[in-house]
């Protein structure tokens, strides 16, 4: 297989986070539209520069409706929707299209009104999808048994504890670190510090996961502008280069897969190989934190520690700014925001860190040169996607 060198073929040049956590007066398209406009402005570009449009969600805010709303005629539209990590896939696809010369500049965007819509993302059961009727498969072999999103992650946490002796206190360390970071983010939903004891003494949603082991539910959205190397050199900010990308899915494997190993196991190797870096080179990481167990499993399967050692790895402040591997410096899905599919916010915060936007404040990861984002979508216990991207400065 001949390969094209994709490293530094494209860069993130513009970002915008719609900071709302509750927006009952807005439509999803409006949040996407406002985000796109501000991200393009952040890049120092104009509407006419953008020729690719990528988004995830439902038919209402898909690329077709969104292009109409924005009155755009993009040359590339990508609605890849593989759950929360869709936006890491989008960046990978935008990189391909730019490197192939088919487009010069793409915008990736997302919005959701999960909170104002009263959507029980985690515990709604099958009703969360509004299915009047189960599909013959796999629904009809799964939803009969009362699956919830929380439950599908809790099952993996339960087995992790069984195999490796991982404790609720170790999972709680992840929630505590995210809350500490949220306390430094004025936009975060929950900002009051919590302790390990607070977490383990709280209500259980699905054993062994407690309420603070689960992400928050908010409204929100954002946009990311990706440009060719040539265009990126002339944008307002220094380019945040896409160094590497990898995509994967994991599923039951016709009943045979060991789902203790998640999609990150498959997606990280091509990303690191393309970037030409190792785990030791990563200065900070944005790790999809739908649940505390998601972070633990992801760090293991990305190769930051050995399988089974995640409990020790996440303890002792390692994940906090100042620690060995700061993650989710915005407070993550556990404390800052989670409108249903959080992957775009990973790209936004990694870009802010690489730009040095928080220089002089405790939120800034010192000398941040290389960042990793890993988005997980779907559910660890049934089927999910994993998208790894590695970003870096000049």
């Amino acid at each position, binding site marked *: 297989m001949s390969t094209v060198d994709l490293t530094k073929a494209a860069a993130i040049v513009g970002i915008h986070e719609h900071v709302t956590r509750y927006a009952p007066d807005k439509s999803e398209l409006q949040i996407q539209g406002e985000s796109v406009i501000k991200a393009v402005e952040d890049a120092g570009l104009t509407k006419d520069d953008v020729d690719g449009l990528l988004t995830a969600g439902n038919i209402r805010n898909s690329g077709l409706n969104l292009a109409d709303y924005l009155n755009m005629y993009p040359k590339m539209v990508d609605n890849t929707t593989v759950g929360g990590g869709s936006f890491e896939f989008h960046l990978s696809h935008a990189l391909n299209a730019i490197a192939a010369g088919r487009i010069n500049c793409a915008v990736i965007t997302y919005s959701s009104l999960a909170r104002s819509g009263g959507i029980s993302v985690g*515990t709604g059961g099958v009703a969360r999808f509004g299915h009047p009727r189960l599909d013959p498969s796999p629904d*009809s072999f799964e939803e*009969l*048994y*009362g699956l*919830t999103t929380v439950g599908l992650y809790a099952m993996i946490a339960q087995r992790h504890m*069984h195999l490796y002796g991982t404790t609720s206190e170790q999972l709680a360390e992840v929630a505590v670190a995210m809350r500490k970071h949220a306390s430094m983010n004025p936009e975060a939903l929950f900002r009051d510090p919590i302790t390990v004891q607070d977490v383990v003494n709280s209500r259980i949603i*699905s054993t062994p996961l407690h309420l603070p082991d689960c992400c928050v539910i908010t409204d929100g959205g954002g946009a990311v502008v990706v440009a060719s190397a040539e265009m990126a050199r002339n944008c307002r900010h220094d380019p945040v280069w896409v160094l590497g990308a990898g995509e994967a899915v994991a599923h039951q494997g*016709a009943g*045979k897969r060991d789902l203790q190993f998640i999609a990150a196991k498959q997606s990280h190797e091509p990303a690191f190989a393309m970037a030409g870096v190792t785990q030791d080179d990563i200065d900070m990481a944005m790790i999809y934190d739908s649940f505390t167990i998601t972070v633990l499993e992801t760090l293991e399967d990305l190769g930051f520690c050995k399988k089974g050692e995640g409990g020790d790895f996440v303890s002792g402040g390692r994940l906090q700014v100042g620690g060995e591997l700061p993650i989710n410096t915005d407070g993550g899905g556990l404390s800052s925001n989670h409108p249903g599919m959080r992957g775009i916010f990973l790209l936004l915060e990694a870009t802010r860190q690489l730009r040095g936007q928080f220089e002089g404040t405790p939120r800034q990861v010192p000398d941040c040169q290389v960042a990793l984002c890993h988005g997980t979508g779907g559910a660890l216990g049934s089927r999910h996607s994993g998208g790894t991207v590695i970003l870096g400065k000049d």
Partner: protein
Amino acid sequence: MPEWKKPLPTISGETKPFWDACRQGNLLIQRCGSCQEYQFYPRGICANCWCEDIQWVTASGRGTVWTFTETRQNRTPGFEEEIPYVLALVELEEGVKMFTNIIECDPKEVKIGMAVEVTFVQANQQVSIPYFKPAA
């Protein structure tokens, strides 16, 4: 028979033999006539070697709990009333895993590795659903 509030399966051509057997108290899985691999959930093709030589076989109905969770919150009608209930993945003796609930058992007694056996609950005239309970 009381009304079944929980979701019911939708039965298609490729899954009908499974649901027909459930009504008779048999748990069917599939085996490929070519590569000999077992698979679950049922489908019209072999997911391993991509041939169409799929055969139905009766599983022993015995297995072990691969993992589980005691669900304390679910807003779906039928389940909301049964909280707490145990959602589990059971690994059958034949080597495939399936979602189920562990019933006829205190949720606190469920452990990973616990031996379980299939049992059927009639939801309505057409559908019986396989569950698992502690092995005798």
